[in-house]
């Protein structure tokens, strides 16, 4: 059976894709998602990484999925959207290569440790906590005019909120759980090496006007312009979407220093 779905309002993107993920499709069905009415410039890494997850999710269930009028991922970082399906074997290689390209092509004098560190924290977060069964993508794009790198990591795993609440049943809602996930030292200790500094570390690399956002299960957490807002969603996103921006022009010049513990 063929299903045609049209997504025309970008503000309804996540509720719309949540509906697709939770819909009762059968193997051998065909799902066609059309984004014709959404202008190209409205797409961000959030949209590309999440739709990649949806396509992967459906195809793993034997459901054919095609997406029309959506920007095609490219290998370039500055012209379009660089998309990668997470693979633990190449995790460090990925972050290393992204930083190498940024350094060689755009910012030879910048210390890009923050970029690499944040990418590593975000990617390890998925492998350590999400139980996403390979349905996880990272998408990034660089705006060379504003010198801002935009990164979205989306997985259709357990979701941060669910994971935290299963560990700490005393946390009664997803909003509180997602807010706690960002707190320094808060961890479910999924792996021995987890101590709960990862998300806080990413957040601290974002400048005031950079956006840091988590959407997970029934909650959203947004930090921008020195303001943090958390709120309950009227849909249940089946996984986690982490989005952050790094203003590269604010990063320090690359120089070696001597640091004593």
């Amino acid at each position, binding site marked *: 059976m063929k299903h045609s779905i049209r997504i025309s309002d970008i503000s309804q993107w996540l509720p719309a894709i949540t509906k697709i993920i939770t819909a009762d499709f059968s193997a051998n069905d065909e799902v066609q998602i059309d984004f014709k009415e959404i202008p190209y410039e409205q797409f961000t890494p959030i949209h590309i990484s999440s739709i990649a997850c949806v396509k992967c999710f459906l195809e793993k269930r034997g459901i054919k999925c095609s997406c029309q009028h959506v920007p095609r991922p490219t290998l370039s970082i500055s012209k379009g959207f660089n998309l990668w399906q997470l693979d633990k074997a190449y995790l460090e290689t990925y972050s290393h290569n992204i930083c190498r390209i940024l350094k060689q092509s755009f910012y030879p004098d910048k210390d890009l*440790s923050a970029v690499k560190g944040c990418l590593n924290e975000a990617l390890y977060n998925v492998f350590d906590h999400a139980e996403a069964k390979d349905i996880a993508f990272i998408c990034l794009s660089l705006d060379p005019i504003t010198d801002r790198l935009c990164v979205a990591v989306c997985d259709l795993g357990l979701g941060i909120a669910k994971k935290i609440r299963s560990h700490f049943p005393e946390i009664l809602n997803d909003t509180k759980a997602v807010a706690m996930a960002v707190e320094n030292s808060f961890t479910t200790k999924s792996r021995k090496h987890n101590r709960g500094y990862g998300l806080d570390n990413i957040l601290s690399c974002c400048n005031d006007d950079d956006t840091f956002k988590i959407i997970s299960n029934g909650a959203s957490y947004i930090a921008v312009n020195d303001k943090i807002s958390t709120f309950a969603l009227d849909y249940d996103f089946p996984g986690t979407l982490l989005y952050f921006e790094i203003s590269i022009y604010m990063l320090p010049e690359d120089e070696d220093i*001597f640091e004593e513990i």
Partner: protein
Amino acid sequence: MCIIRLEDIMKRHQHYPDAGTALYAEIVSNLQDEQIIIDSENVRGIPTLMLNTSIGRLIDEFGYSRIKGKICFKHMGKTDAETLRKYISHYISKTV
């Protein structure tokens, strides 16, 4: 004084938590030295999950006072140094 080249450790261990564990082991085996210098040349973007299995574990097992002033990072990036400072300060405040 002993010098540990971080780049060599990273080459031997693909994943950061494993590299952190290897760094921890090298530091422990040289703890009797007056000073341990970790040469971070060509290594940038050390994530906290590597610090957890190295510096964090050292603080857990030996206490901060035992390593304070003994371990230095050479050729470290400014941002990594800031991450390290913040990490240690949070770690100590959490464990005290």
